[in-house]
Every structure is written in C-alpha cells, then in structure tokens.
C-alpha cells in the first residue's frame, strides 16, 4: 500500500497518466489507433529523443543546461555516417562517435564548471561551432548510401513490436535511475543542483560532478546520433537542429525543474515519448502536421504553469503549517510558564 502511494506521489506518474490519457483520447476519436503496431510505433520513434532527453536531464539536475546536444548529435551522425559509408568497421565508428560526444561534453563541462561561464551562453557558442564543423566535415552534402545491414538493424524487434534500440534505451534509463537513486554518488548530481556551496561543504566535488554530467549528456547525444543514422539512413546538414529544445521540453514534461535539483531520468523518458508521438497522434485525429508545433507549445506551457502554481500553493501551505506549529508551540510554552509561575 505504501509503495503504491509512493508511486502515485512521484512526479513521473502524472506524466505517465498524461501519456495514457493522450493515447486513450486519440483511441476514442479514432479506434484504429489502438493497435499494438501503432502504439509501439510511437515508442519506437521516440528512441532518439529519449536518449537526448536523458542526457539533457543530467545537465538540468545540476541546474545548468546544454543546448549543444542537437549539433552534437548531428556532428556524430555525420562522422559515423561517413565512416560507415566509406566501409569502416562498425565498432570503430561507434567508438569514434562516442569519443567525440564525450569530448564535446568535456568541453562544455570545462566551460561551465571550471570557467564558470553561464551554461546557456557557453553551450550556445559550442552549438554554433559544432554546426560549422559539421558543415566542414560533410562539405554541405548529405551523407547517404549507408550499409544496408546497419540500416536494417533499426527494424529488428526485441519485445513485441518494440525495436532493440528502444528496449535498449529503456533498459539504460532504468539502470541510470537505479544508479542515481540507490548509490551514494548518484545523489551528488541533484545535491549540486540544489545547492552547490552546500554540496561542497559536505565533501562533494561539485566541479567533477558537473563535468561528469556534461560528459554523460554528450555521450548520450552521440549514441542518439548513431541510432539516428541507423534509423533514418541518411544525414542532412540540418540533422539534429531543434533537438535541444525538444529535449528540454521532454524533460520539463517529465517533471524536471530548470532550477536544478529535482526530478528523475524516467520522467524525461516518458516526456520524450509524448514529444515524439504528438505529430503521429495528430494524423490519427485527422489534423495536419501543421498543428504539431502549436500543440506542443500549448502542452508545454500548460504543464509548466500548472506545475508552478501547484508548487507555489504547496509552498504557501507548508509555510502556514510551520507558522501554525510555531504559534501552538509558543502557546504551550506560555501555558507551561504560567503554570510554573503559580
């Protein structure tokens, strides 16, 4: 019973409920949507977003942001795509891609944690540099003609209609969630985000924690880039643009605060599914995909505003409770003093 209450209280559960409600509403309007194939397609399309959003969550935990993930994804996709096209070994290409992602994360982390530059500005700059690099590497052309085996692997299913990629991403999210909640170092990220000076005082190396979260973010974006390559089969010069904002939106939908120190990685994973399936759901509801952005914006704004109002209300309630407790304490003390005086 206690466990059920705990689950219901968790912020992620409202995202899950929202997702289920979304699917049911669409199912009510167009019953043909509620088939295993369609629902799993929603999950399968979200794999790239899921990975980027989980990475983004790490930088949001520490109260910073990384808006270079989109071009990070694009650059890695371009380089890995070119290596595979030119007949390179898959393992080697993946290792190079992940190494580049980690390096980008390290640069971001260095700028933010060591040089103390504002994260939005610093990563925005890195974003521009990476876009330029991507253009130079590919020469502005599309990367096409990837090996068929690599492309076909994206269609291999693991559980039911869910692809290996999506199951892998979910497994990764669960492992990260367990590491974050059950290990001592896992709590460091949110501690730093909540109160960096306080975290330093209790012996957490906040600089290293911040560096680590940026590296994790970079690596996950790189993995997302490789999967993007495999799923789509070609890389354009705008690949990945806009992913950073969708990832932030997925995190916010999943209950993470941009102020840092709040949330889990399961929330963003659910948020990513919502973000990725909106346009898919719209087609089932008979809308054109022109409504995609507007509806995404409305959902995002409604959720964050509702969240902010609820939080403000509960903070006010707690304040009243504290005040009331203090008053009653004072009264008891007065009564005791009066009795002592008699």
């Amino acid at each position, binding site marked *: 019973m206690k466990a059920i209450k705990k689950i219901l209280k968790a912020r992620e559960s409202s995202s899950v409920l929202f997702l289920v409600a979304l699917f049911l509403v669409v199912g009510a309007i167009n019953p043909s949507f509620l088939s295993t194939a369609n629902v799993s397609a929603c999950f399968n399309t979200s794999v790239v977003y899921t990975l980027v959003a989980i990475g983004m969550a790490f930088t949001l935990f520490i109260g910073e942001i990384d808006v270079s993930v989109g071009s990070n994804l694009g650059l890695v996709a371009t380089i890995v795509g070119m290596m595979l096209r030119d007949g390179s070994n898959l393992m080697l290409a993946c290792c190079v891609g992940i190494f580049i992602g980690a390096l980008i994360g390290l640069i971001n982390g260095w700028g933010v944690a060591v040089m103390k530059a504002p994260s939005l500005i610093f990563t925005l700059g890195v974003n*521009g540099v990476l876009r330029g690099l991507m253009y130079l590497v590919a020469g502005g052309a599309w990367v096409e003609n990837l090996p068929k085996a690599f492309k076909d692997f994206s269609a291999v299913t693991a559980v039911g209609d869910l692809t290996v990629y999506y199951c892998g991403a979910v497994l990764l999210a669960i492992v990260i969630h367990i590491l974050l909640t059950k290990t001592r170092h896992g709590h460091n990220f949110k501690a730093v985000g909540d109160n960096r000076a306080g975290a330093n005082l209790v012996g957490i190396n906040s600089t290293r924690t911040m560096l680590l979260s940026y590296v994790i973010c970079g690596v996950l974006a790189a993995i997302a880039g490789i999967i993007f390559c495999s799923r789509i089969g070609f890389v354009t*010069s705008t690949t990945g643009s806009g992913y950073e904002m969708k990832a932030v939106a997925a995190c916010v939908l999943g209950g993470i605060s941009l102020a840092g120190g709040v949330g889990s990685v399961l929330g963003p994973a659910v948020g990513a599914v919502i973000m990725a399936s909106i*346009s898919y759901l719209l087609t089932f509801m008979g809308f054109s995909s022109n409504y995609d952005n507007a509806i995404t914006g409305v959902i995002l704004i409604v959720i964050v*505003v509702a969240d902010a109002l609820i939080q403000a209300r509960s903070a006010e309630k707690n304040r009243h409770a504290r005040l009331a407790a203090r008053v009653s304490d004072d009264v008891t003390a007065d009564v005791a003093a009066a009795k002592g005086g008699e």
Partner: protein
Amino acid sequence: MPEDRTKTVEATQTKAAKPGASLLSRITAGQGSWNMLLMALIIIEFVVFGAANPKFLRPQLFFTSLNDSLPVFIISIAVTFVMITGGIDIQVASLVGLTSIIIGVAWQDWGFSIWGAILLAIVVVVACGAFSGFLIAYCRVQAMVVTLGGSFLYSGLALIVSTMSSTESYQGISGFPDAFKFLGGYKFFDVFPLQMAIYLLLLVIAFILLNKSKYGRKVILSGTNPRAAEYSGINTRLTIMSTYMLSAFAAAIAGILLTSYLGTAKSDLGSDLTMDIITAVVLGGTLVTGGRGSVIGVALASFAIGLVRFGMPLCFKVSTQYPGHPHRNPADRHHRWSFSGEQHQCRD
C-alpha cells in the same frame, strides 16, 4: 541625481558578482571599457575585411548586405531589457515569422488594407509577448521554459495562419503594394536604407528609455534586487511583463521590415535568429543573471556580428549561414519541421 543612483547600482553590481557569472562580470567590469573593446573589434573587422576584399567598403554593397542582419539589430536591443530583469526571451524569432504571415494573410485573404494588416500583426504579436510575460511575471514560471513553449506555440500559430491562405505556405505571399515595399526598399541618396534609419531611431528611443527614463530605472532595479524594487513601490511584476511586450514589439517591427524588404510573407521568416540575438545581447555586456546591460554595448555587439555575417562569405568565401537554411531547401525543410519523414521511413 540619476547619475548618482546609476553609480551606486553599478558599484553594488561589481562588488556582489553573482555566482555563475563571475567570468563575464569580471570581464565586463566596466561597460565603458567594454564598449571600447567592441569598437576596437569593429575597427579590426573593417581593416581585415577591407584589406581582404575592397568591395567590402563599397557603401552600396555594405548597407545592402547589412540589411540582412537588421532583424538581429532591432530585436537584440529590446531583448536587452528582458535580460536586465533577469529573464530571457527565446520566442522572439518565432514572433518575426508570425508577424510576417499575419501581414500576408490579413492583406491577401482577409481583406485588410496593408496598414490595417500591419496594425493587426503588431497587436497580435504584442499580445503574444504579454501572454508569455504574464506567465513569467505573475505565475513565476521560469522565463526560459515559458519562452521555449512560446517559440513552439507561436511558430505553430504562424504555420496554422499560413494554411488559412489561398497561397501554398512554402511559396510565401508576395505582390505587396509599393507603399509597403518602400519601407524596406527605399534608400536615402540611393545608399542609406530607410530601414537602417528606422533602426537608429529605435536605438535612440531605447537608449533614452533605459538610461534617462523612470521606466528604465524600474527595469534595472527589478533585475538588480526585485525585493528592494518591490519595497520601493515599483510594480516589479508589471515591469517584467512589459519587457516581454517590448521584445515582442521589436520582433513585430523586425518582421514588418523583413517582409517589406524581401517582398514575401512567410511563416518561418527569422526562425534562425535566436542564437544571433542572444549572442549579441550577451556580447554587449548584459549580465545573464540580470541587473546590468547597455543598449549601446548591445548595438555595437550586434553590429560586430552583422559584419562577420556579411564579411566572411564576401572576403573568405566561408558561409556563416547554416547551409540548410530553411528557406533554401524544401526537402530539408520538410525534414526539419516534422517527424513525418522519420515515420514514413520506419513504416516502409
């Protein structure tokens, strides 16, 4: 008297360098010396680009090319106000497109006169800014999140408005009357563009608004110390909300001039401006954490960025635009805007 107050505000600013901004606040310790640095940067750009390609210094070409960066110039001075209050506005770029498409559709399909259409666009866009500003100031939601949602919502709205037109949205609405094209196309002495003059006028107004008016004091104090501002009788919430309306208004002006200059109304005009605007505002010496900023600094910074944008391709054949510019390649554009491309891929 006001000068004294400015000094004290600035002094407390430099002393109490806020965490997370220590690097920038150290560099930009004095706005005056920072502006000199920016001036030096601009002079270096002139010398380098001028030496690399003498065409760069031809006034005709110079002003025409600088026109491309005009939306950034105009919007960044207004976003400075937002950032001084400690907020950020990443929705302005989507408002440029919304302005443009409302003008086009209202004029072509809804039977408005061109000036009526412009007025309608300004009203709608400022209302959009007010909506986001309201959520930020009164509901206390983070500015970054609200304007992120706003950027989706308003670019989506622009797309929806464009579907109400009889013209296909990717073509853009053109054929505007000459009086409207005059705004973006007219040049004094065949050299100096009218829209540049409008920008300079707006710059002077913004400078007076920030440095010489009561409103400017309120904006700065709301960013420096909101609580002190509240206690001294400033309605900080209204002040903060008004800065978002101001930036939306600037986006509307930029959208009008851009539409007039290009002669086409499209829903995705200006969609790639966000990064340049934020860069200009920060490079101009505005504190990201709020409390300090300079209109002159931002104007200089945006000018420096504009010079790079036009000098690099001209002199060194390096494209500084993203190659997959949404206006250029319809195939890319489709891929960029929706997931449908991806989904077709997997279903096949």
